[in-house]
């Protein structure tokens, strides 16, 4: 059964600033929007200008995990972009849902809570940190700060958490449980992750150009008819989802066979009832890891063996690598469609543990 959603709002939080226009400007001029050298440059999540851009007071966010803050800011910006500027939590909309995707959750608060538990003992467990350490805290804060009274969910599918969150949002719309849904994804980057390790050796290498980062993004999804009825601008249409997995187990890497990627791609195309030849741009999952990049290229060659290859886009070159960056990359693909990427973009995601996701976006 086809699953479709209209993207009517985009909100982005980056080291260079916030908002759809900023992201569009950077991508169109080919400038990296990611952190340039070190994570120390990254503005604290509760930086006043960041909060002011989303109409949030410091008092309402100072106890939130930084990831939650970025999720709420991105959600508010996306709702404003979609034409819901008054979504400030004072009125509850029972028809508005929230989905949050993350690979590692609210790490800052979790580790602070765990550290205190380890150092001082269970009697000193912090009752303020404990609820904010739960992975679902960011979604909860989104519902509170944006007045979203419909279904709320957090998905923890590693590096395809963003893609999964988009699918879940589209399912909520398709099932009629919501009239609109805010889908957000993000992760915290740790200084420790930025240092070279055996498995992450290629990341952060000056030659490869990718560095761990901590972008967050939100998209507002509505049904096409719902968006049309209120005269909303539609950035793009999500029109196909495909998933495939290998049973690697938690210690293995990305999908190792190009056929796995092809299954996901074929499923997305089949769901959208579109042929591979119509894909104008393939937005790659490539992240500078040889294992992922090589197999993904083989899959592209296999899938388009009888057709002209689509143009390849590697948004992580400009966005950096945030584990659950599916939503921010889809936001980039929306902007690409508006800037001349053709009619149809295939967005690819892939995750450690062997799962991959393909999403199709088309111009409205």
């Amino acid at each position, binding site marked *: *059964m*086809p699953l479709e959603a209209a993207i009517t709002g985009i909100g982005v939080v980056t080291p260079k600033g916030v908002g759809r226009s900023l992201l569009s400007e950077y991508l169109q001029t080919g400038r990296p929007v990611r952190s340039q050298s070190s994570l120390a440059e990254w503005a604290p999540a509760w930086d006043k200008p960041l909060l002011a851009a989303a109409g949030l007071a410091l008092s309402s966010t100072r106890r939130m995990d930084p990831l939650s803050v970025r999720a709420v800011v991105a959600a508010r910006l996306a709702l404003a972009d979609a034409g819901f500027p008054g979504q400030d*939590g004072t009125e*509850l909309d*029972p028809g508005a849902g929230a989905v949050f995707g993350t*690979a*590692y*959750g609210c790490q800052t608060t979790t*580790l602070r*809570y*765990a550290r205190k*538990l380890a150092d001082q*003992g*269970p*009697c000193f*467990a912090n*009752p303020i940190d*404990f*609820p904010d350490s*739960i*992975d*679902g*805290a960011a*979604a*909860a*804060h989104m*519902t*509170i700060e944006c*007045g*979203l*009274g*419909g*279904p*709320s*969910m957090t*998905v923890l*599918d*590693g590096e395809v*958490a963003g893609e999964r969150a988009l699918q879940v949002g589209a*399912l909520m719309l398709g*099932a*009629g*449980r919501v009239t609109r849904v805010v889908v957000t994804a993000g992760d915290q980057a*740790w200084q*420790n992750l930025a*240092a*070279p*390790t*055996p498995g992450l050796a290629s990341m952060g290498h000056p030659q490869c150009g990718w560095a761990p980062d901590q972008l967050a993004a939100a998209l507002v999804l509505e049904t096409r008819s719902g968006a049309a009825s209120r005269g909303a601008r539609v950035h793009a249409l999500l029109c196909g*989802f495909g*998933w495939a997995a290998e*049973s*690697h*187990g*938690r*210690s293995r890497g990305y999908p190792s066979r190009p056929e796995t990627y092809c299954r996901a791609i074929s*499923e997305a195309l089949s*769901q959208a009832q579109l042929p591979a030849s119509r894909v104008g741009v393939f937005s790659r999952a490539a992240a500078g890891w040889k294992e992922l990049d090589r197999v993904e290229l083989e899959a592209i060659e296999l899938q388009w063996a009888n057709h002209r290859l689509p143009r390849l886009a590697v948004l992580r070159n400009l966005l950096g690598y945030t584990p659950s960056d599916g939503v921010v990359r889809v936001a980039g693909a929306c902007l690409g469609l508006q800037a001349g990427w053709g009619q149809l973009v295939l967005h690819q995601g892939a995750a450690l*543990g062997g*799962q991959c996701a393909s999403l199709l976006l088309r111009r409205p």
Partner: protein
Amino acid sequence: MVSRLSPIVVTGLGAISALGPDVASLWRGLCAGQRGFRRIRGFDAGGCRVQLGGEAPQPRLPDSGRWLGLRRAHRTAAFALDAAAQALAQSGLSGSALGRTGLVLGTTGCSDDVLKGFLERVRRPGYERSSVRSLKDYAKRGLVDSVAQALGVGGTRSVVNTACSSGLVAIVLAADWLRVGGCDAVIAGGSDHLTLHTLAGFCSLRAVDSEPCRPFDRRRRGMTLGEGAGILVLERLEDARARGAKPLGVLAGAGMTADAQHLTAPDALGLGAARAARAALNEAGIGPEQIGFINAHGTATPHNDRAEVVGMRTILGARSLVCPLSTVKGHIGHCLGAAGAIEAVVTLLSLRYGWVPPTAGLEEPEFEGMLDFVRRVPRRVSASYALSNSFGFGGNNASVVFAHPEGLGAP
């Protein structure tokens, strides 16, 4: 659009809880009024205000090589695997059919050992590296990756976290996947194990009782935490019939809402809970008069029980005093991410066998005259539909209507 044409049926059940290693021991224990609480032995809870919990038995995993890796993984994955193996065995799904079988699990926590290992690597003086292994262990997606590998499940997989409603929400997501044709069957449910991390946290919130919990009782002072897993195998009805599988129940409708008020406290008027229940009834195409009984969330915290009672009275209206309601948390404790899924298993068993278990620990009802609480002994019911509720931190509310398979008619 998500198709409403094909009913989603349950063809397999699995559970592990403080009452025993499988569904049969769970059901026997509930009907006998057993309470599976004891002093916690799995970790040193001496520093906590409460040392009581509902610990589940060791999961039963074969000694074959494919599963050995899971022994080293944390207990949450092992519980999930044990329960999933039970459910798959009952459903009869195996071999190539597992290639298009999906997996979605709800969970809330992180293993103490995994967190401790990650913390040690992060905080070591002068050490700026984080082992990839510990990072991969820390990622919750490892739960479904491990279970999928052990079972040979090849379909898409996901981990969801909506706090204490995670297990039930995972089941709802699985049904949606089936309706859009993403999989031919889905193993869905929840799993969580008792950790110092969680116990200390709830103790800090004064949300746990040092004595066995007393849901809906005027003397209630909080939860008793538990652990375990509950798993359902879900399929489209036509697929189940085509391979000769027997439906154990039907997922007739689901509703999910957010209170959007507070990170931990529920809406005092139970409005979010009522909206979720109403949405589930609407999706199932039935009215409150058709609900045979309610499997309540019933954590025994002062706020949650009150909010649920008010919410369910709003839904039931004139039937408030004739629709039986009970919770199993007085028997097995609050199993967090597994709670909603274990309670879904119990709800389906109640529909099948025609008995609603009593609410253990309920001796002096605070809400006498407001709802029909099942107390002391199981209650005979003849129900076509039942409602199961799960509510979680962050104001997450989920309700599911299950239907008796008799309503499906002959193939």
